[in-house]
């Protein structure tokens, strides 16, 4: 089913006209109401009057995650705080998260995007959708929640964790779809097997998977084991949250809702647009987001775009699976992790050397997050419990700042490579292709 066929199946020419109109409005709004954008545009020598069509977008400067950090918490807002109806946040460095504010219209538009995704997965008012994304500051839970209500389906707001209860409710209520990270879904399949749950008691037909990269092999495995169709949902907090795009029944790329979130692909080195269909960094401009517009926001996700009409009937551009990152961010158990976050936390501890090495892997469908650290010579002791306590303090601090619990491994002195310029500070053993 197509939720908004007028938009999702609009001709490319009409779409570009619509995008141009919306771009003019949002750029004028950002320039007039956000001191951040005004000074950024002025520095760059561009005025709202220079924007006529969507092609003029290349005249505009880029926005980065660092800009969000620098303007914490509310300096990028383009409306008075009295018009902001919700805040979400994702982890930042050392206690300073990235904050995003939404007006009522922004929430509606975000929800529209998710409704389009859910419809594309074949879900409607007859479905019962278990939202197993985390609720709270993370956009996953509430974003999906509103989307479920929008299409008139029943939302089961289980949130993340407590797998036993999740599986119980899934059987008792007869959930027909589940929204969670693909790795959590794989973990659930293991639990179903261990508990000898009869698959006849599980009525799932659709899995809505996102918030971390996943592979076609994972899709196959999930579809076989849960007897579902597994669909990708894409999004990021800075742009709104999940539902920036989603797959259709053809499973041949993630449709992006480009009347709301205009995508470009640029070369991450030169920042120039790449030739159509080529791989590069995905950049979004929110065309209908008023609280905190994002103009040419660099996602750092590497992918490519396909503008051919899809067999499902949609003309909405299709994005390939994310092929990597143009920075060193890793997504571990659905949480964004930057090595620089670990570094700044380590610096808070006088007992540790400022060197570390992160090792990420996937064992039994769960991401492992190991951080090797060295203790300063004077803090190595004869008492093992002191080192165990020291390790626990670091793990707790990282958990509270980044949002996931690492496995801290204290290693012998001088075993971690010292940074000589660009030291490799992390290795990811997970296979995404």
């Amino acid at each position, binding site marked *: 089913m197509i939720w908004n066929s007028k938009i999702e199946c609009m001709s490319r020419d009409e779409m570009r006209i619509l995008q141009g109109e919306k771009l003019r409005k949002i750029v004028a709004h950002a320039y007039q109401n956000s001191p951040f954008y005004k000074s950024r545009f002025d520095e760059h020598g561009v005025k709202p009057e220079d924007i006529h069509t969507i092609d003029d977008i290349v005249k505009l400067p880029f926005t980065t995650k660092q800009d969000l950090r620098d303007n914490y918490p509310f300096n990028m807002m383009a409306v008075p705080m009295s018009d902001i109806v919700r805040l979400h946040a994702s982890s930042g460095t050392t206690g300073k998260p990235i904050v995003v504010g939404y007006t009522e219209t922004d929430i509606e538009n975000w929800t529209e995007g998710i409704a389009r995704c859910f419809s594309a997965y074949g879900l409607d008012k007859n479905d019962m959708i278990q939202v197993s994304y985390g609720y709270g500051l993370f956009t996953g839970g509430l974003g999906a929640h509103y989307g479920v209500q929008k299409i008139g389906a029943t939302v089961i707001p289980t949130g993340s964790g407590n797998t036993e209860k999740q599986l119980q409710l899934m059987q008792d209520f007869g959930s027909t779809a589940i929204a969670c990270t693909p790795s959590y879904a794989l973990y659930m399949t293991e639990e179903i097997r261990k508990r000898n749950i009869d698959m006849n008691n599980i009525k799932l037909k659709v899995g809505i998977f996102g918030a971390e990269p996943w592979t076609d092999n994972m899709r196959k495995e999930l579809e076989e084991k849960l007897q579902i169709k597994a669909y990708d949902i894409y999004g990021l907090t800075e742009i709104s949250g999940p539902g920036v795009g989603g797959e259709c029944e053809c499973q041949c790329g993630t449709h992006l809702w480009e009347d709301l979130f205009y995508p470009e692909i640029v070369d991450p080195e030169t920042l120039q647009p790449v030739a159509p269909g080529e791989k590069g960094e995905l950049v979004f401009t929110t065309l209908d987001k008023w609280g905190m517009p994002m103009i040419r926001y660099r996602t750092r996700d590497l992918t490519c775009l396909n503008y051919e009409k899809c067999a499902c009937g949609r003309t909405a551009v299709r994005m390939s699976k994310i092929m990597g990152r143009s920075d060193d961010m890793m997504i571990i158990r659905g949480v964004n992790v930057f090595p620089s976050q670990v570094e700044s936390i380590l610096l808070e501890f006088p007992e540790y050397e400022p060197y570390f090495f992160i090792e990420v892997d996937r064992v039994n469908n769960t991401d492992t997050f190991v951080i090797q650290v060295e203790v300063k010579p004077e803090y190595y*002791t*004869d*008492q*093992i419990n002191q*080192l165990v306590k020291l390790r626990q303090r670091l793990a707790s601090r990282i958990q509270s700042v980044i949002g996931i619990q690492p496995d801290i491994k*204290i*290693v*012998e002195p001088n075993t971690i490579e010292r940074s000589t310029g660009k030291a490799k500070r992390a290795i990811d053993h997970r296979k995404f292709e």
Partner: protein
Amino acid sequence: MLIRQLSVFLENRQGKFAEIARLLGNNDINMKAFTVSESADFGIARIIVEREKIDSAYNLLKSHSYAVSIHQVNYLNSPNQPGAMAVAMEELCKAGVSIEYMYAFADDASHNSHLVIRTSNDELANQILSEL
């Protein structure tokens, strides 16, 4: 009496202790007593060597990049017979001194036992133990 003990941090990897034993052996340093305690991914070897060689052992390990430290611990030489150790422990307990860790071995030739005891208050423990 108080003696000095070497503590060496070791990653939990095959051959780690062999490395240390070989290094000390090649430098003519004899271990008189030791114990290794471990957590999941690391361990600490606590080693007693001949008194006059402890500083050179420390420097040797340090120069090979080991995380090594020296701590004072209590050494008790007591008769190897039933109840001997109980007396020592009872006296420490009465004085409010608790045991962090200890290791011991019996010397059949002299009918004595040798104990290394690390406590919450090693100075006080030394006083108590020397008055036994």
